[in-house]
């Protein structure tokens, strides 16, 4: 393996390094290179690309290192000459390794010759440097591992499986690369094998040239490193765009690092990524994500629930159960940090405070960056999904402005087809969580006043309908399948109502037929009559015209009964206007039950009629009885008068 490595070496014989030597040398080189670039933190343990020129061991630290080897100055000069640094002009990895080997050789007593390095040598000894190196490597090891895990996390959030594939691809790629030959023109390429996964094994096997740019705080910069997977696999497209932006801005980052709280600082790329994720959950960046949505999202990060709970506590500053964009970024960042092994802070770090985040990253930046990154990612499937969603919304939308919304969605479809689209996940339309209602409600007025591009407005309005109707009280829940659809949404094709489930059985007394109404009218009227007759009999008046007053009450009652019956039916079934219309769309199920009811009611009617007849009879007989009584009284009187008064 090292033979191939030696092939890339330009300065003479192939360099054979043992495993231990390779490890040590690369570490030392990294140290020097890292020190050279000025960052306090360590660079990756791998060597840097020679071609980039940004990662070479600067003369200063290298000289220090050589001096630490406690060799005389002339020897060091000779070594420097021999290794080719003077010729080339800088200490590339090749030169550095040769130099180290020479130092080892000299320290073991061999002359300063190229041939010396061919044999097995112990590691060169440096007085101070080794300690430093060891100390240094506590951190970089971790950080490197942690850095590498971030890509896991970020891609995890979107696609677990892809990540595994990528990792495998990376692993297969790495052995093919020669340790000392640098791939000059490859894009920033990270070795995505975390230390915990046998990184040491890989390192000893092969050395990779990787770009260095690590400043102290930047372990978390590399979340966009997942994009490094890009070349190997098919990452999400926005990550692909982030690769580009990252490689361009890599140099810029180097300048940003001079703050404390480095792990808690959110970089530009991270910020963009978080904002993308936020938008995927909630299209309006000025609105917020509800608790349940955020919970589902963050649960994917596979942190434990108590930790997630604590992170939420930290990040939801106003404790309202929802996350605004800065709160979301803070939470996301904490999760990322936790995933990489950073312990969670006791309190929210100042760089993650919502006010700070809002101040640091003004809005317009998101939009243009996102639009650029998304303009190329408009798969047709997404559009189709959008269309489906809009159709669904037209069904679900039962609120005040269904018609304008629908017109708008019609236009939206056109707009969306031609322009960019958010990577809206499928769970957005399918998530009927009522907290989203409040979000959409709050988002609606905001989107109205939000004077952004028409595309965004259109998208937002297109997004609003997917939520279930936020005003269920307006319409009776059962009536959702009934007329109100037809009343309010003339544009909805009739098939839509067919999609909806049939309404549950209406309460008793649908009475579509007149006869039933009549019977119902009769029944109460008869009851009334009976009661009125009972009242009449007590004052002992002769009520001859039975037929008339009863008929009047019947008629009088009939109409109100009609109306009341009609009103009852819509009030129970529809609860709204147009009672006449309500009679029509009775499904067959109801008719069957109503037939049964009819049977029962006819029986009831007959009984009541018999009852009424008997009651009438009773009253008539009572009247006759009264008359008879009176006659009797009259006769008795006469008898008394006619009888002789004599009482003998």
């Amino acid at each position, binding site marked *: 393996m090292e033979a191939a490595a030696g092939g890339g070496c330009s300065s003479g014989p192939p360099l054979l390094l043992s495993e231990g030597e390779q490890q040590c040398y690369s570490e030392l080189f990294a140290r020097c290179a890292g020190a050279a670039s000025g960052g306090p933190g360590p660079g990756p343990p791998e060597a840097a690309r020679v071609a980039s020129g940004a990662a070479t061991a600067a003369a200063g630290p290298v000289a220090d290192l050589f001096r630490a080897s406690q060799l005389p100055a002339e020897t060091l000069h000779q070594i420097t000459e021999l290794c080719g640094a003077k010729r080339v002009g800088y200490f590339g990895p090749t030169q550095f390794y040769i130099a180290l080997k020479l130092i080892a050789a000299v320290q073991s007593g061999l002359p300063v010759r190229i041939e010396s390095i061919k044999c097995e040598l112990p590691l060169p000894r440096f007085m101070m440097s080794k300690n430093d190196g060891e100390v240094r490597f506590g951190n970089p090891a971790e950080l490197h591992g942690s850095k590498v895990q971030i890509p896991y996390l970020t891609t995890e959030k979107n696609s677990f499986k892809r990540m595994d594939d990528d990792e495998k691809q990376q692993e297969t790629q790495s052995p093919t690369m020669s340790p000392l030959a640098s791939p000059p023109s490859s894009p920033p390429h990270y070795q995505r094998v975390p230390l915990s996964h046998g990184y040491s094994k890989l390192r000893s096997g092969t050395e990779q040239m990787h770009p260095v740019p690590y400043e102290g705080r930047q372990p978390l910069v590399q979340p966009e490193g997942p994009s490094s997977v890009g070349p190997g696999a098919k990452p999400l497209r926005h990550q692909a765009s982030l690769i580009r932006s990252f490689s361009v801005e890599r140099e810029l980052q180097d300048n940003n690092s001079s703050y404390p709280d480095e792990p808690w600082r959110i970089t530009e790329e991270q910020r963009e990524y978080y904002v993308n994720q936020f938008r995927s959950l909630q299209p309006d960046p000025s609105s917020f994500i509800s*608790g349940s949505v955020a*919970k589902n999202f963050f649960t994917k990060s596979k942190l434990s629930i108590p930790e997630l709970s604590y992170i939420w506590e930290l990040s*939801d500053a106003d*404790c*309202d159960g929802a996350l605004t964009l800065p709160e979301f970024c803070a939470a996301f960042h904490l999760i990322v940090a936790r995933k990489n092994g950073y312990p969670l802070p006791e309190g929210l770090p100042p760089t993650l405070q919502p006010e700070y985040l809002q101040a640091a990253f003004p809005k317009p930046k998101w939009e243009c960056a996102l639009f650029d990154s998304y303009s190329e990612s408009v798969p047709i499937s997404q559009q189709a999904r959008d269309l489906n969603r809009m159709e669904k919304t037209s069904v679900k939308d039962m609120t005040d402005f269904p018609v304008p919304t629908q017109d708008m969605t019609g236009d939206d479809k056109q707009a969306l087809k031609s322009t960019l689209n958010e990577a809206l996940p499928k769970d957005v339309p399918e998530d009927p969580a009522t907290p989203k209602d409040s979000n959409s409600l709050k988002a609606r007025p905001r989107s109205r006043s939000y004077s952004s591009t028409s595309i965004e407005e259109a998208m937002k309005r297109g997004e609003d309908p997917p939520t279930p109707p936020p005003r269920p009280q307006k319409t009776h829940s059962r009536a959702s399948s009934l007329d109100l659809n037809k009343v309010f949404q003339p544009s909805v094709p009739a098939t839509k109502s067919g999609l909806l489930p049939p309404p549950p059985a209406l309460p008793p007394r649908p009475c579509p037929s007149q006869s039933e109404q009549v019977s119902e009218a009769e029944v109460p009227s008869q009851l009334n009559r009976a009661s009125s007759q009972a009242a009449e009999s007590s004052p002992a008046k002769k009520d001859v015209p039975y037929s008339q007053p009863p008929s009047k009450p019947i008629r009088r009652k009939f109409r109100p009964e009609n109306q009341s019956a009609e009103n009852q039916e819509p009030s129970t079934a529809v609860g709204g206007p147009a009672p006449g219309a309500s009679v029509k769309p009775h499904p067959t199920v109801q008719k069957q039950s109503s037939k049964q009811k009819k049977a029962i009611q006819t029986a009831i009617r007959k009984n009541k009629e018999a009852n009424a007849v008997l009651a009438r009879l009773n009253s008539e007989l009572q009247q006759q009885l009264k008359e008879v009584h009176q006659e009797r009284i009259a006769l008795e009187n006469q008898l008394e008068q006619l009888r002789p008064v004599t009482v003998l």
Partner: protein
Amino acid sequence: MAVCIAVIAKENYPLYIRSTPMENELKFHYMVHTSLDVVDEKISAMGKALVDQRELYLGLLYPTEDYKVYGYVTNSKVKFVMVVDSSNTALRDNEIRSMFRKLHNSYTDVMCNPFYNPGDPIQSRAFDSMVTSMMIQVC
């Protein structure tokens, strides 16, 4: 100033109970448990009227020789019980009320956390720190 603070769920099991460590915790647990009966009694007595009219603060549940027990019920029948040292006579009713109000606020904050399932023991650090601050004056 409180010696023991407990949050009891609707089903009368504790969601959170904490006492000053030097005392025998079991004793406080027992006191809280027995106070639940008194709480229920007070709730039912007032419950004949509309629930809205029922005040949340229940006041002194019962005094013992060494301690006084105060109670507070939320509208979702979650009870807060506080045991206070009797020798601490400087504590007035208003202060107890304010302490309960703080407890209630912290409890709602815990509830707002979507990762918290109602009925789970409360493990929020913010809540812990708030309770500690209320108990910290006891030396």
